[in-house]
């Protein structure tokens, strides 16, 4: 168990390092970064000044090493546009994205789990087909469009929910629902197939032979086993959500990390972009680690092996 953990941590570290390099290389794609920063109306002198000011005249490897070492300490440099420490910017925005992500995954599980269970227990009935249809639509739905439609419906026409900003918990309802739908199809299908498989197993037959009530058999005996992969996949889905929140944050004007990244990309604020990509990647890696731990925690066979 311990050896497994160490191996995973080492792998996580390597991935972080690779992403570090990738995000560095990413921002150098435009060719001469100094030109991009200085803007279209800059003169050669301006560009040269920018180059020196931002340390872009140093050899690439030196720049990379500098960035890498500083990043390891949490110093992501200075934002060009916001005139602030990038680390502070991210720290300010992360809670919003985090809240959004957690809300979304909670909604996703609250919808996907019951639907999946019902679909499995009542296979091939109308409820099974309803669940499959929901999954199909969820998969095909463009998230930003879904957000806009909800805005029109619940925000404008019904006036129940605010359509932008982050004042109260209400601000997270619509964005949360939209984001949840990116994960509901996969989670529901996984729950359904897992439950179908588990319900056909021998120990469920034993549980029924013991005279346990049908609800106990399904919710206690079956779900306990079928939910294991679902929970750990949910952790990974959360990682994807956090990485892909930019669209929803833009639609609902939530000033989270995704929104920050989008603004910075439009303004060529490369330290911010680099840092955000790195931070989100590290969070994803952390979440996959948590997923593995959850798996081990929930399955006694893995725990005492």
């Amino acid at each position, binding site marked *: 168990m311990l050896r497994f953990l160490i191996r995973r941590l080492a792998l996580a570290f390597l991935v972080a390092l690779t992403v570090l390099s990738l995000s560095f290389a990413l921002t150098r794609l435009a060719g001469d970064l100094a030109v991009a920063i200085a803007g279209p109306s800059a003169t050669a002198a301006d560009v040269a000044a920018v180059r020196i000011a931002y340390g872009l005249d140093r050899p690439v490897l030196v720049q990379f090493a500098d960035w890498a070492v500083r990043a390891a300490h949490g110093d992501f440099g200075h934002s060009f546009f916001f005139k602030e420490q990038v680390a502070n910017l991210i720290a300010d925005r992360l809670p919003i994205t985090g809240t959004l992500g957690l809300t979304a995954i909670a909604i996703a599980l609250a919808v996907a789990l019951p639907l999946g269970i019902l679909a499995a227990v009542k296979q091939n009935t109308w409820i099974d087909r309803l669940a499959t249809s929901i999954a199909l639509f969820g998969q095909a739905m463009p998230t930003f469009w879904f957000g806009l439609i909800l805005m029109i419906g619940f925000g404008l026409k019904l006036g129940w929910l605010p359509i932008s900003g982050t004042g109260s918990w209400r601000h997270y309802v619509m964005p949360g629902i939209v984001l949840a739908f990116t994960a509901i199809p996969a989670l529901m299908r996984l729950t359904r197939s897992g439950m179908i498989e588990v319900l056909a*197993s*021998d120990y469920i037959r034993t549980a*029924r032979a*013991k*005279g346990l009530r049908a609800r106990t058999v399904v919710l206690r005996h079956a779900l306990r086993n079928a939910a294991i992969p679902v929970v750990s996949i949910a952790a990974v889905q959360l990682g994807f959500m956090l990485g892909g929140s930019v669209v929803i944050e833009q639609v609902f004007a939530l000033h989270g990390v995704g929104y920050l990244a989008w603004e910075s990309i439009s303004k060529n604020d490369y330290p911010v972009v680099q840092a955000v990509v790195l931070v989100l990647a590290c969070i994803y890696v952390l979440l996959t680690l948590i997923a593995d731990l959850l798996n081990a925690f929930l399955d006694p066979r893995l725990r005492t092996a």
Partner: protein
Amino acid sequence: MTPVLTVEALRVEIPVKTGLLRPVRGVGLAIRAGETHGLVGESGSGKSLTALGIMGLLPARAHRSAAQLRLGEVDLLTLNERAMEDVRGDRVAMIFQEPMTSLNPAFTVGAQLTETLRRHRKVSRGEALARAGDMLARVGITSPRTRLAQYPHQLSGGLRQRVMIAMALLCEPKLLIADEPTTALDVTVQAQILRLLAELQRDMGLAILLITHDLSVVARVAQQVSVMYAGEIVETGEVADVFARPAHPYTRGLLSAVPVPGKVRRNEPLGTIAGVVPSLVGEIDGCSFRARCPSAHDACIRPPPVRSAGSSRNYRCHLPPDALEAQP
């Protein structure tokens, strides 16, 4: 004395792609308290489905019907699912063939045992745990307290089967249905489990329906035996009698295929039964054994009557008992 289990004309039908599958075609049984009744047959004869039919554990698509299905005085046919859930685990219990997969891997042994008890009796958790521990000891498990806290994957196959037996008997049922309980176990463990079952039966006055394909198991522990073929009981009676003077050609074939120490002569080939089990989809014309029977004749196209070969000795064949005596 009312038998603990009375089954009459039990039928199970399942719609499948090619038609209507009839794995159980009119099975009848009677088991008294303290008695072990062996239900013997090869794979595909419908033994397990008979058991599941009695328990009401058939898949949703299956259709069960019977002239009589009673547990003591209780008519199982009139019970709805909820009432049946009350009966299962309490008045009738069942153990299965694969101990390795029959226990939930996510819960401790103790949790699964106490669950049964608390479902059917009003006991506190502490009391339930204590009784579970006692039961484990009774089925021959050492250091029961430790075992209660363990997970199934930490126990061997033989131990798990003992746990299953303990779990089945916690509520002191009147009937225990054991579906191939020793098939998946080592020979030595097999003997132990059979001995255990016999002991518990004596202590508790338990009636046991023992399903198996292994004649030696039946010979060892059962008092009555029913031989099943293609969904029907083809012969039934006291074990010693049936094994000594089998009346039905199928039973004869089965017995000749099993070497009995002391009875088999050297260089004598073991008997075989040629052919395969007929398809159970749709109806079978006449005698189901006709295609493989060495004594088949013209009359066998019609369904054979149930004949008697002695007190409580019945078999399903056209031939009279003495006709078979003459055969080698």
